[in-house]
C-alpha cells in the first residue's frame, strides 16, 4: 500500500512546494521587515529642495502617514511616480519622501520636472536614516499609524491597485483604531 502511495504523496508535496516557491507573483527579494509593529525610526534630515529647512517625521506624529523611499537612479521609482502623483491628489495621508543614495541636485530636478507628490522630502545624506528603517533598495513604502508605529511595508513600485487594496484598507483600519 505504502509503496504505491508514497510517490503520490511525494508528488503532491513537491507540487505544493513549487506552487509556493516558483509563484511568479512572489518577489524573492522582498524580505519581511522586522520593523512591522515597531515604532517608526526617527527621520531628522533636511529638505531636498532647501537644505536649511528641516524635515522630521516627528512633525507628523498623531497622523497616519506614508514614507516613500526613492532615488533618481532607481528605474522602478520613475515607474511609480505617476501613481504617487495620483495618490497625492487624493489627499488621504501625508507622503514623506526619503531620498536615498542620491544627489540633492538630481533629486530636485526630478521633482521639478516630474511633479512633486510629497508633503515633505527628506534628503538622506549618508544612508544612516535608511539603515534605521531597514531599507535595502528603492522604492520602498512604509505606512505609519497615528501611534507612530510602522504597520505595513511595501517593496516594489506603488500602483493604483496596490494603493487601493493594500494601503487604503490599512489606513482606514488604523484610523478606526486610533480614533
Amino acid at each position: 500500500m505504502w509503496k504505491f502511495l508514497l510517490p503520490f504523496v511525494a508528488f503532491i508535496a513537491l507540487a505544493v512546494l513549487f506552487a509556493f516557491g516558483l509563484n511568479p507573483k512572489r518577489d524573492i527579494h522582498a524580505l519581511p521587515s522586522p520593523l512591522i509593529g515597531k515604532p517608526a525610526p526617527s527621520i531628522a534630515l533636511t529638505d531636498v529642495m532647501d537644505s536649511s529647512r528641516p524635515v522630521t517625521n516627528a512633525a507628523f506624529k498623531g497622523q497616519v502617514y506614508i514614507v516613500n523611499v526613492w532615488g533618481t537612479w532607481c528605474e522602478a521609482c520613475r515607474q511609480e511616480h505617476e501613481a504617487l502623483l495620483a495618490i497625492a491628489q487624493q489627499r488621504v495621508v501625508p507622503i514623506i519622501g526619503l531620498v536615498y543614495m542620491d544627489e540633492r541636485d538630481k533629486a530636485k530636478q526630478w521633482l521639478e520636472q516630474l511633479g512633486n507628490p510629497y508633503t515633505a522630502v527628506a534628503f538622506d545624506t549618508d544612508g544612516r536614516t535608511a539603515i534605521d528603517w531597514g531599507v535595502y533598495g528603492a522604492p520602498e513604502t512604509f505606512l505609519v499609524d497615528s501611534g507612530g508605529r510602522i504597520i505595513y511595508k511595501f517593496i516594489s513600485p506603488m500602483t493604483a491597485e496596490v494603493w487601493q487594496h493594500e494601503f487604503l484598507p490599512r489606513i482606514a483600519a488604523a484610523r478606526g483604531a486610533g480614533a
Partner: protein
Amino acid sequence: MTIRRVFVLMGLALCLLGGVPTHALDANGQLEDPALQARFERIAKDLRCLVCQNESIADSNVELASDLRRQVRDMLVAGKSDDAIFDFMTDRYGDFVRFNPPLKGKTLLIWGAPFIVLLLGVGIVFRIVRGRSRMPLDDEPSPGPL
C-alpha cells in the same frame, strides 16, 4: 603529455585566482587596532548584503554594503559588543541579514533541515537493506560477484 601539463597549469592558475581575496573590506582603510580589525572582518563576513543576497557585506561593492560596513566600524570603535552589532542589524533587517542565524523558533527549520534529511536517508537505507536481507537467495537477480 604537454597538453596534460597545460591543463594542470591552468587548473593551478584557477585555484590561485580563486584564492585571491577579492573583498571590498578595506575601502575605508584598516582599523588601527588589529584585534578590532579582526572582529570587524568576522562580523562583516557574517552579514548578508541584502541587495545581492548571496554575498556578505565584506565581499560586496554595492553602496548599501559599504554603508553597513561603515555602521559596523563605527559601532566597533564606539566599543559596542559583537552581539550589540548583530542585534542592531537583525532589529532592522531581520534574521536573514545573518549568514549564521541564531537558533530560535523561526529558524529552527533551517538548523534542523540537515538532520531531518539525514534521518530520512538513514530510514530509506535501513528499509532497503532490510528488504534485501529478507529476499530469498534464489530470487536475487544475481548481478554477478560484487
